[in-house]
């Protein structure tokens, strides 16, 4: 495999290129989720009767998942700290903990969705539930993708390589967390 | 071609007037820009031994040639904005008192026009339903209720200069006042499937007497 181009090692702005890339990626993601949630809010405002449907979401599961994601963001920060001081193996351990949080989140969500579907609330039940599953589902896809990429970065970090990427996946992870912080009240709590 | 398309409604002249205003103002700038453009190409074509000028863009006597037109363009825009707001308000934001009413329903792929019968009211027993034929009276103000049964359609009467999209699940109100007697096209102005191109309807604008005759002929028997 050929080495990195000279271009990748330059930094005319002083900001590391990887960090720039992640911020631009997040900018595009913000608009995607913003568009989806904006559409949801516009609908919700025009349909007060959706509050009745929203009352059937599993608020405790959602709250527990919020806690899980917040904790996983914390372990991501710890991973970054370890990477900053060159401790690759320690960073990898914290990344694996973060991935564990992701797995827990997904597991809880699976149980939660199973309960809701068995009660008859599917994606086609009404437009509230369509938004619910679409928004949470899109978020879940981002959790899965993030966890997978995190795995690759953890393997590299364990070997002491590409430690600067620990920070980058951490930034992405905080974003995924942030989206959930918006989703939770909008989908679960709002009356 | 616009002169061959007659003005058939009370606001057609307003809309045409706005179009002409835009044509005059934008046309002026268009010809100035193209004129300057082609003149510069000719004037500064490469000549042997003649070097190009070094212009930094900070020369005030030159940038004036840009900032002055820039300001004038803005002024022209203001004229167009004011004129357009007036026309738009008249056609789309106000609803003058109606002499008559009609309900228009678009569906894949035909227009249904619900005319009130001699009682002048919609949704009564003497209503006249016609497919692809809209019958209206000249010099009477109409309110229309526009609906769509399946997908988006759009009610367009070029001779009126009128157009309004029809949205399923909604009834949209608008108005027109025919000013010309005759028979003209009604088109669907929103692609609605395979039959979009055959959703041709006709509008028949008649005088009071012809209208009365049509109503009598077409009122459903009980």
């Amino acid at each position, binding site marked *: 495999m050929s080495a990195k181009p000279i271009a990748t090692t330059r930094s005319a702005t002083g900001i590391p290129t990887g960090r720039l890339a992640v911020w631009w990626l997040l900018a595009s993601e913000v608009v995607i989720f913003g568009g989806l949630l904006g559409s949801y809010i516009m609908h919700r405002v025009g349909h007060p009767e959706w509050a009745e449907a929203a009352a059937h979401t599993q608020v405790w599961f959602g709250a527990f998942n919020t806690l899980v994601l917040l904790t996983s963001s914390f372990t991501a920060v710890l991973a970054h700290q370890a990477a900053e001081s060159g401790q690759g193996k320690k960073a990898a351990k914290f990344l694996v903990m973060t991935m564990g949080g992701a797995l827990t989140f997904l597991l809880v969500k699976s149980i939660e969705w199973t309960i809701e579907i068995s009660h008859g609330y599917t994606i086609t039940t009404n437009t509230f539930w369509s938004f619910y599953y679409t928004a949470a589902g899109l978020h879940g896809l981002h959790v899965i993708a993030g966890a997978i990429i995190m795995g690759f970065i953890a393997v590299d970090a364990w070997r002491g390589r590409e430690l600067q990427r620990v920070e980058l996946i951490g930034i992405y992870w905080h974003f995924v967390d942030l989206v959930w912080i918006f989703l939770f009240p909008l989908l679960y709590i709002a009356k | 071609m616009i002169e061959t398309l007659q003005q058939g409604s009370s606001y057609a002249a307003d809309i045409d007037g706005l179009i002409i205003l835009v044509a005059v103002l934008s046309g002026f700038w268009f010809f100035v820009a193209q004129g300057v453009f082609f003149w510069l190409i000719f004037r500064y074509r490469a000549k042997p031994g003649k070097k190009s*000028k070094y212009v930094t863009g900070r020369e005030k006597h030159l940038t004036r040639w*840009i900032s002055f037109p*820039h300001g004038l363009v803005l002024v022209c825009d203001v004229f167009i904005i004011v004129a357009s707001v007036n026309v738009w308000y008249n056609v789309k934001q106000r609803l003058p008192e109606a002499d008559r009413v009609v309900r228009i329903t678009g569906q894949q792929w035909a227009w249904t026009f619900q005319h009130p019968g001699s009682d002048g009211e919609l949704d009564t027993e003497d209503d006249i339903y016609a497919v692809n034929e809209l019958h209206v009276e000249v010099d009477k103000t109409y309110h229309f209720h526009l609906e769509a049964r399946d997908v988006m359609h759009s009610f367009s009467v070029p*001779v009126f200069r009128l157009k309004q999209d029809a949205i399923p699940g909604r009834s949209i109100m608008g108005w027109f006042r025919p000013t010309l007697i005759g028979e003209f096209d009604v088109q669907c102005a929103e*692609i609605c499937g395979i039959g979009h191109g055959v959703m041709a309807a006709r509008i028949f604008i008649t005088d009071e007497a012809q209208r009365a005759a049509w109503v009598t002929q077409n009122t459903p028997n009980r």
Partner: protein
Amino acid sequence: MVEATVEVRHAQHEVHEHHGPQGVLKYLWSTDHKVISMQYLFTGMFMAVVGGFMAYVFRMQLAFPGSSVPGFGIVSPGEYNSLVTNHGSIMIFWVAMPVLIAAFGNFLIPLMIGADDMVFPRINRLSFQVFFISALVILGSLFVEGGGFGGAWTAYPPLSAKGVYNQTPLGATLWLIGVTLEFVAFLLGGINFITTLMNARAPGMKAYDIPMVCWMIVIASILFMLSVGPLIAGAVMLLFDQTLGTGFYDPATGGDPVLWQHLFWFFGHPEVYVVMLPAIGITIDIVATFARKKLFGYKLMLYTTVATGVLSFFVWAHHQFISGIDPRMANVFMVTTLLISVPIAELMFVIIATLYGGSIRLATPMLWALAFIAEFLIGGVTGIFLGASGADIYFHDTYFVLAHFHYTFFPIAIIGTFAGLTYWFPKMFGKMMSDKLGKIHFWGTIIPFNFIFIPLFVLGMGGQHRRIYNFQHFPDLAGADFQRLRIIATVALLVMLAFQLVFFYNFIRSLLRGEKAPKNPWNANTLEWTTESPPPHGNWPPDQMPKVYRGPYEYGRPDRESDFWPQDEPA
């Protein structure tokens, strides 16, 4: 001393190896920005032939309704709708964007900023692979049961959401997936372009030393990234409506068809600037080179472009004036729409002003660049008729709109492309194109182009609506004088298509037997002209990467004998 130097050279060589994969695999797996740019270019050119063929078929149907079209057969109403839908979609998403942004961006940005590649070469390769799959999906959608999607490139629901309405359900879903994949490809590509321009510049290249075409492509990428998000969300919702039976856009279940329109046009309007900016950037760089002039106002051009980009987020509902939005909102969008014409007009004035005092050589690239300006002016000015909401009541959905956007899109996608190709062909392929054949192709394209679309303006003013396969059904439009205009437009299209053969002949002949191109055939200042034609892998030897000492447009300096001053020449 000598051994030490040799050792240093070896060390550098090991660290910055410039070896790509060899052989056929080179083209499949290469991460070299120049190879990837060619992949985008040739895919885009192929799709242009497909899109052009579709235009040929439906224009033949319009000129000779009901007749069998040679090479296609009789055009049914459903097929007509599929043809116009896919013509539009293909030309915007699979021709204009890959050629103007991805091909030119990939080729030019690293070269023009003095870098050896993009900062993320493997993501670059991934973006092409995703794009290529999207092209296969859209092409595949044309051959499935029911045929290609026929709901227009705007895909308004409920028509696009339910197969029972559009009768092309499989085509509709594949169309949607193809478009969404294309979006993902360009999001990936955009991140590369933006970060590369920001960070990988040669030492000494400050922000205002960057060639305008690079700025334009990157600003376009930013506009794209910030505007496409809501439509991706909307596309997911439409996909679910199509395949899962949700009702996001179905009024019967509490959905709203107009929501799609907002999501679509919130992206759709910035999108036209996404494709416009690279074409204008190409035009600007060519004008500077062939007029031998510094840009009349580099910073002014940059600021008006950014202003246009920002404003472009606030005009979208001018596509929806009569669609059932609150009529009061229409006034707001009318004002923003007319205002956006101001920075664009200013940009055009500044480009024209650059010609003042020049020494203008009318080589083929310059002809294309000048034609862009002349033709785009028509497109821009006719947009004002549509931005004035009162006039739009009449013009919406007529051929006036169609002619307006072809007078903008054609200069952007076709004239801009030919300008860029004829200008950078020597650098890309190491050979010179025939200028004589180039001029024949130029005139054979530009003159017929106007004869296609001026009749369409006239037809639109006469009330002719879009997406209708046979105007004989409308008594007011079926007259002989209307039909004559349709035939003129179609014949002009046939002539224009025929002249494209001249281009293909010139392209291939020049590739195979053209005169070898020097490093800098046009005596231009920018960095791409300081390396070999074509550039080797890595663009420059690793120890000879360029340094920059001045801006890109130092032409015609009175204190120098030569009328140009390359950016990398020390003071």
